[in-house]
């Protein structure tokens, strides 16, 4: 079974990684690889495509290959396009939801998921121990100043480690980080800052505690000063970790899509992968 995927929104990165584990997977960049060439040469069975990448040529081409299952990620379906599934966000506004439902397309409102393909099974590392860890892979210009101010203030009172591919100009920025070290850092830090709300499931799936960054500094201080309350906190962390591993991993989201596409063989393969993966943590 062959699958190709265009670049999808960041929150679906884990889903794409999960698909690459159970199918013959390729990334497709429509700007550099024309749609007809892809369909003729790669011969995909499934295409994951972001609405932003869709144009009239792609719609026409996909209509000529009706056996290819198209999974469209976006908040609506362009005219003349017939995707097998439309994948939308569960936070879609009621008005857009009404529009989507007025058309006759199978729709999945896909929740976020933890990327357990890459960031998984974090182990406690005493060298990574700190009050706050922040993995910064993206800096949006409008939030940069706020991030610097918050991190600089937190660094004055607590032990913090900032890592990631986006450099933050404070001495506590300690370089880029691998996926393995990311999982270990989530596990070893008392709290992990989740600035854009896209890391909380990854943090919890590795036994960490996420702290949303939209809190004020005083609110953060009060949480950090309370700190972890030994057994009680570790019980809560374990419960949260289990709950995510049982229902909110990227494999779960992939299985939802595959079941809707009625691809039971691949869905079974994904379930086996998921079982193998989480059994080591849930033992």
């Amino acid at each position, binding site marked *: 079974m062959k699958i190709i995927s265009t670049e999808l929104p960041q929150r679906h990165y884990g889903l794409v990684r999960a698909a690459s584990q159970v199918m013959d997977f390729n990334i497709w960049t429509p700007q550099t690889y024309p749609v007809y060439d892809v369909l003729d040469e790669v011969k995909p069975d499934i295409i994951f495509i972001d609405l932003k990448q869709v144009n009239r040529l792609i719609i026409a081409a996909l209509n000529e290959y009706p056996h290819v299952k198209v999974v469209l990620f976006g908040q609506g379906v362009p005219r003349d396009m017939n995707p097998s599934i439309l994948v939308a966000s569960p936070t879609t506004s009621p008005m857009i939801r009404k529009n989507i439902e007025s058309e006759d397309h199978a729709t999945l409102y896909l929740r976020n998921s933890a990327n357990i393909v890459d960031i998984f099974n974090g182990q406690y590392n005493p*060298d*990574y121990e700190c009050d706050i860890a922040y993995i910064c892979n993206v800096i949006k210009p409008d939030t940069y100043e706020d991030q610097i101010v918050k991190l600089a203030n937190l*660094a004055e009172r607590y*032990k*913090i*480690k900032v*890592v990631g591919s986006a*450099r933050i100009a404070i*001495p*506590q*920025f*300690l*370089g*880029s*980080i*691998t996926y*393995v*070290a990311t999982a*270990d*850092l989530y596990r070893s830090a008392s709290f992990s800052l989740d600035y854009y709300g896209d890391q909380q499931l990854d943090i919890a799936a590795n036994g960490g505690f996420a702290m949303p960054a939209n809190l004020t500094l005083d609110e953060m201080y009060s949480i950090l000063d309370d700190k972890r309350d030994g057994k009680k906190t570790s019980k809560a962390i374990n419960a949260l970790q289990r709950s995510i591993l049982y229902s909110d991993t990227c494999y779960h989201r992939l299985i939802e899509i595959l079941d809707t596409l009625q691809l039971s063989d691949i869905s079974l393969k994904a379930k086996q992968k998921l079982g193998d993966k989480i059994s080591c943590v849930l033992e």
Partner: protein
Amino acid sequence: MRAGIIVDALGVSQLAMTLIGELNQLHKLNEPIDIVVFYHRYDKLLKSPLFAMLQEQEMWGFNVPVMATSLATAKRLISSVKPTKKFFYVWDLEWTFDNHEFSNISSIYCHPDIQLIARSQEHFDIISDCWQEPVAILEDFNYERLVDILR
């Protein structure tokens, strides 16, 4: 007393100028202190050294305290077997201006065999916050303090 210091090179740099100046002053005391500087890359010297210089690989069989002065030299010091004590004099806060991989440099700064030395109280605070607490503060290779630490 014998000890070693590893540097990347003794060419034109603040580290080299300071180190050569301080070790030359130490030599003038005529005390039985023998500090060897190991270099990774030979470079043209701006001051004549009054101490021994050897290629870095000689450090492997040197069974006395040895001090690294950069991440690269510290990494090689960690993997050498003979030195009796391994110090890392954090001359520059290298992680703040070079692009390093966190787990890689963490394994150097936090290595159980390595004892960190800071350059100033300000560096001491930052290094303690980010990695492990340095065992001493040594300002600009001050030779009296250097001997105390290496002894």
